[in-house]
């Protein structure tokens, strides 16, 4: 699920402290120039530097899916992605899915199908589902279940999550 990145690593910042690098990312349509420790994960940058706390830290090991975001349209685990790997990337988080105050069809479908309980995994589930639809591979409920298996929901709202995704895909 982690996309590879063949772009050149960013050069160390000239004016930054030792060990920091400069880069810029586009997040939800806004460009953010950043100077940071190259060990910073994209998740920590989003949450702690950009105050975009909708993306959640669940396991911090790339195993629960709570931190799923979209990087250049593909679903990516922000906790396993170093921010420096994504210089120049176009990032969408849960905060960037609604347009002009109108919820994304998947967000609306999640509400209509009661596709969450505690809500903690929900931003990751929705971003993952946006990525899944863009991939275009999953066409049936069985395939949705398989392709969403990287996003765990301890409350067990899976039947409604699948139903919400089916609705957003226009499947019966």
């Amino acid at each position, binding site marked *: 699920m982690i996309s590879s990145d063949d772009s050149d690593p960013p050069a160390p910042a000239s004016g930054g402290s030792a060990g920091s690098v400069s880069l810029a990312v586009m997040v939800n349509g806004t460009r953010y120039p950043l100077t940071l420790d190259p060990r910073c994960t994209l998740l920590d940058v989003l949450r702690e530097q950009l105050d975009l706390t*909708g993306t*959640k830290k669940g396991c911090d090991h790339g195993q629960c899916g709570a931190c799923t975001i979209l990087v250049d349209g593909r679903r990516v685990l922000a906790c396993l992605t170093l921010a420096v790997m994504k210089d120049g990337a176009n990032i969408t988080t849960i905060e960037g899915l609604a347009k002009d105050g109108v919820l994304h069809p998947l967000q609306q479908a999640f509400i209509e199908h009661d596709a969450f309980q505690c*809500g*903690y995994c*929900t931003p990751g589930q929705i971003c993952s589902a946006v990525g899944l639809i863009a991939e275009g591979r999953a066409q049936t409920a069985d395939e949705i279940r398989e392709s969403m298996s990287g996003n*765990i929901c301890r409350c067990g709202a*899976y039947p409604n999550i699948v139903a919400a995704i089916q609705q957003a895909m226009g499947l019966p």
Partner: protein
Amino acid sequence: MTVPRTSGSEDMLRAVRRPVPHDSAEKHVSGEAIYIDDIPEPRALLHAYIRSSDIAHGRIKKLDLAPTRAQPGVAAALAAADLPTGHNDIGPGFAGDPVFAEQIVEYAGQSVFAVAAETREQARAAAMQAVVEYEELPAILTIEEALAQDAQVLPTVTLMRGDADKSIAKAPRRISGRLAIGGQDHFYLEGQIAMAVPGEDGDMLVYSSTQHPSEIQHHVAHILGLDANGVTVETRRMGGGFGGKETQGALFAVVAALLAQKTGRPVKLRPDRDDDMILTGKRHDFIADYVVGFDEEGRIHGVDFMLASRCGMSPDLSGPVNDRAIFHADNAYFLPHVRIVSHRSKTHTVSNTAFRGFGGPQGMMVIEYAIDEIARTLGIDPLTVRKRNLYGKRDRNVTPYTMKVEDNILAKIIGELERTSEYWQRRKAITAWNATSPFLKRGLALTPVKFGIAFTATHFNQAGALLLVYTDGSLKLNHGGTEMGQGLNTKVAQIVADEFGLDFEDVKITPTTTGKVPNTSATAASSGTDLNGRASLIAARTIKERLIKFAAAHFHVAPGKIVFANREVSIGGEKMAFVELVNLAYKARVSLSATGYFATPKVAYDPTTMRGRPFLYFAYGAAASEVLVDTLTGEYKVERVDLLHDVGKSINPAIDMGQIEGGFIQGMGWLTSEELYWDAKGRLQTHAPSTYKIPACSDLPRQFNARIADWSRNREDVVYRSKAVGEPPLMLAISVFHAIKDAIAAVGQYQISPQLDAPATPERVLNAIDALRLRLGDHLPAREAAE
């Protein structure tokens, strides 16, 4: 005290009975819902780290924090010797859970000291610089070892009725055996977390992800040396609790508060996932010995059960958890003669705690396993044996603890599910299919659930609420319950809205805080809505009666002619907006705020004799599950599940359905893929989702039909005649375990019963198949055994 009945005719309800979405739905899908780690961090915030023991049992020979304190960024480091009051115990009820270990550590993962630093990384790195030396002591790591050494956290409890020995000896048939039942990690997606913010006069505000703010408040005050009125604990929502935040949040809240007190700065403590799983308690694993006497029809004459659970290093909630296991070792069945011996074993592992079902699931597993064994011994379908042993309506209806089963609807539920799941047709088809399929085997099982509702500790069955009505007609409600995704706030808002004929959206529920409703009980035991919904209803009724009294006098109308409906108030036929009446009442100096208080009636039992009425009522359900097992690998797939569950008259069918499906899935994880593993030194090796497998979306049954028994109604006067739903559906998953056992039995043409422990991981399934084949080799002709 008069308890107002839930009011109004059903057709006037605007909010109750409707599947209104969760009150945080929009916030959840937009990422705007704030969990504690999302609160904007206050100025000068420090981050804390707890360093824990890496041995299971030992004496602390040396603890030197000087190297830690000398590290960059460190603001404070505290161990047991540094506690301000000398108080060092956060056990709930029973002592035994130190904040920081003193001379002895009793599990690998026990908190030894804590550090606060400018960053989490600095705190962690500094903690690793401390000098900690142990003298290792012999550790008890299994229930069997604890039983052999008579190591207990609490004394053994025995429940007896009649003469179990005699009835078993005289019964025509008899079986005996041992079953092991695994534990379970809560794996709430939001881990444990607390943030403490010091205030004036040494006061402390603690944001805690907890199901029990009042208990956190108590511990923080006690350990820091403050009065309870100097400590406020606030919980907006949890990212899952499942019992894992009933007592286990206390360590993190108290440590954050201690460090905040020491430094005068706010402190956040958020353990990472591995530390969370290593440091905190889980569902108790059990071993159970059973001896059952029965007749040729499969009717049970007497049972003799020995239940022993891994309580870990301290009592925590193990007393009531094991009591509940005893109270559910009958599940749905009448047991004429009973002896249940319950050992609360002490081990040098983490202290086990509350987990959805609270011992009930383990107790139920024992009797369900025994019934399955009876059926296979007699060659009768297990469902038939289950039905023959169900509690009766007029006789055979008293539990071993003497509570009468008054509203037994299980025969109806099972009958309906037999039809809708086509149990008997599928049984026939599966048996035929298995006869022709050499390696893949199908299994089917239908199991019931009867689960007692109320806290077994009677005094916890109380709740409070505070309702404020503003002059713009909006309502603000605070109650003692906590929101962990179960939809409690949604249901309570529905209840309050309908009392005033308002919409659900007119009622805002604020974060749970000890500053508004004092001395609350944990949101646990499935009782959140029963208790807090009713307390909130009582508060609403108080204000409504004031408004009616005012309106009756002001408009010279009989009180009976004043009706709240459709966001209006009809006063003798004249209609007025709710907000208008509120304004008139305000100007006439009528109080528009009220508290509500509720104590559950009827419940009382004597814990020394284990007799009485521990529960107000029972919630029922049944599940039929079908699995497909690959007998060459032990892997399996849950093919079809049909659930029928009783929620009384539902307050919110969407939320209740979520609890039913989600509870089932969580129970399925407990009995199938979720395996806790400690190594030979007592260190937990399954402390992340890489090694601890909770159900994923792909583990959903291929066909999943869940239904609410919509004809049900709570015969007890519970709010809107609903029933609690948080825990009971978890135990519907016992059907999956028995479907797997049934598929394994097909390997031996149902001639002998396989032995299977929980969780039924593919490895255990394969071992059970191998063991069965070995036994078949003894019984079957050589040609078949050599297959």
